[in-house]
């Protein structure tokens, strides 16, 4: 069965490279080794979303039983999204679990992930903290997601007020990454974020 997996990936790889649609939607795959079982995916943040302008990298691992089982995919670029873990990059998406079908391809996976960035499913969250913010304080969520896109994915929009708060918390002797997570997780409330960092 391993030979089906490798043969399929070789053909799929060509398909993604050639496809015009791929060019238009800005998705990419690159091989990480010549065994065709590890790849790196890249998707552009969809326009009119807080992720617009950012470039997100994905780690794709192909199981021996591919395409009868789904590929294992996670974000390596950090991202603020209800269905993606802000810590590990793990993704909650049905087609990567029980809704996978052997006729699906890497191209469909990448396009589905791009669609997920455009339309989150907060009722089936991977990251409960992000999902709660998405539902309760949508404005704060958008600013936070845009800030993360700017910092980690090269997005163009800076959120100066949020950056200020991070600098302030860093002034108390905390690490930048930890300060960002604490502030993001507590709706940018300085007091609660520092309390959390201290406990």
């Amino acid at each position, binding site marked *: *069965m391993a030979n*089906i997996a490798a*043969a*399929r990936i070789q*053909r799929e790889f060509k398909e993604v490279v050639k496809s015009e649609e791929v060019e238009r939607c800005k998705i990419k795959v690159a091989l990480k080794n010549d065994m065709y079982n590890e790849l790196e995916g890249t998707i552009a943040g969809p326009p009119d979303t807080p992720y617009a302008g950012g470039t997100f990298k994905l780690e794709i691992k192909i199981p021996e*039983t591919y*395409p*009868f*089982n789904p590929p294992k995919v996670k974000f390596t670029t950090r991202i603020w999204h209800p269905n993606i873990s802000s810590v590990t990059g793990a993704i909650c998406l049905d087609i990567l679990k029980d809704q996978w*079908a*052997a*006729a*699906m391809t890497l191209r*469909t996976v990448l396009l589905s992930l791009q669609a997920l960035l455009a339309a989150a499913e907060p009722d089936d969250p991977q990251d409960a903290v992000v999902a709660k913010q998405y539902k309760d304080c949508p404005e704060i969520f958008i600013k936070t997601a845009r800030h993360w896109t700017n910092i980690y994915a090269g997005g163009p929009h800076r959120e100066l007020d949020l950056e200020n708060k991070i600098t302030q918390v860093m002034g108390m002797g905390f690490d930048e990454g930890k300060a960002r997570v604490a502030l993001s997780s507590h709706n940018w409330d300085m007091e609660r974020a520092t309390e959390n960092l201290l406990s």
Partner: protein
Amino acid sequence: MMPLVEQEQLTLFGETSRLHNFKMTDTVDMKSQNSDDSDYDESDNMDEDDEDDYCGYYDNDTDDLDIDKPKKSDDPEYFEFDLLHLEDAERLLNEEVEALCSKLKIDPSLAKMLLQVHGWNKESIIERHIIDHGKLLVDSKIKPAVKYKDTCFSNYRTCPVCYLTVQKDQMFSVSCGHQFCKECWDSFFQIQIQQGITTGIECMEKDCNILVPEDFICSALSKPDFRDRYSTRSFTDHIEGHPQLRFCPGPNCSVIVRAKENKAKKVECGQCKTIFCFKCGIDYHAPTDCGTIKKWLTKCADDSETANYISANTKDCPKCHVCIEKTEQCTKCKHDFCWMCLGDWKAHGSEYYECSRYKENPNIANESAHAQAREALKKYLFYFERWENHSKSLELEEQTLLKITSRIQEKVMNNAGTWIDWQYLLDAAALLRKCRYTLQYTYPYAYFMEKGARKQLFEYQQAQLEAEVENLSWKVERAEITDRGDLENQMDVAEKRRQTLLKDFLEI
């Protein structure tokens, strides 16, 4: 535990009087039997005397049973079930499949899928079949709403899974029309079977959830051992999907229990003796229901560390503070106390038994969150401790039973009565086990109960049962110096309490 000191003198005494008693009652009963059956006696004068006695003896016996055991309709735990072997269960399923086949004029593979999808509810399938056959098949994921049409006129196709080009007649599809090559179907089925999926295998196309029928799978599988694994696994799926059937959860036991009603009732496997709940398949849990016991067991697993700390196997004697294991007395100062609340046992007597009832802080709503959390933990630990205590006592009583058995053996060997004479001791130990088991499962029930009159009644009955179970335990442990009548009376009282509680609170 049981005082195994030399009490031969005492026991012999007790035994002779018991045997004497036995004879007395026997004659009294027979007299009454004879007078009851006077018609019978007159008409059958021809019969010899001893045969007459013989008939009377057995009639009398059945009467006894009627008095001692509750009638079927009275017993809240009564449940009718059969124990089936694998072959019987297989035959039963096949009969149901065939019945549906002939009724709906469909093939067995399709009938099996329909039954599995609809929880083996044949009547509902037939009803829906009559209303709209097409809709039934679409709703059951057997036929697509719209079939995929192959519009390509070439003799070759590219398999969407392996991307290889194959001849048109080497491509196969199920009812939805999505075509894949034979090798891909084969590999796909093998991987699904390896992952334990059989009856729910769907088409390989994106967004297509049409189920693949058994005959299609079996003809595509190239390896015979996979075909065997498929049929074994799908049989298991069918049993698990059938509301009237359940596998015995006992280790390595292949018995299948069949009951007409899917209720949370007690089932005992005839082969491995496992006792379990028919509805959920875990240890029998009356009076607690399936959902509550699951919540309780999850909670116990979560909070095990804290609980472990509390439920250590030892306690301090409340009088002399020496650390003791649960026996029945403090071995050091001989003070008798209640293991549960460490209060003086004398005060428990026949009086109202209070130590099974949790006394909630009445002012808790006004306390701080911290105090509330502490109170919640205290409440949980209170119930958990009692639950654990009974579970441990059940283990201890297992040892008592072994001791009783070996003592009986010894006595029979020494000609001190026959095996039958001592049988009542085993009955007492078995009944104690049964009562304590129910008592153990009253604690999760009480834990999740809302405060109010019903909980008060429950706790009252629980306390009554608790007291009688402890009395019985006491007497069983001292069986050799307890009068038989006294012990049997205690058995009756304890069982009545258990029945009363179940009748009032076992919701089925």
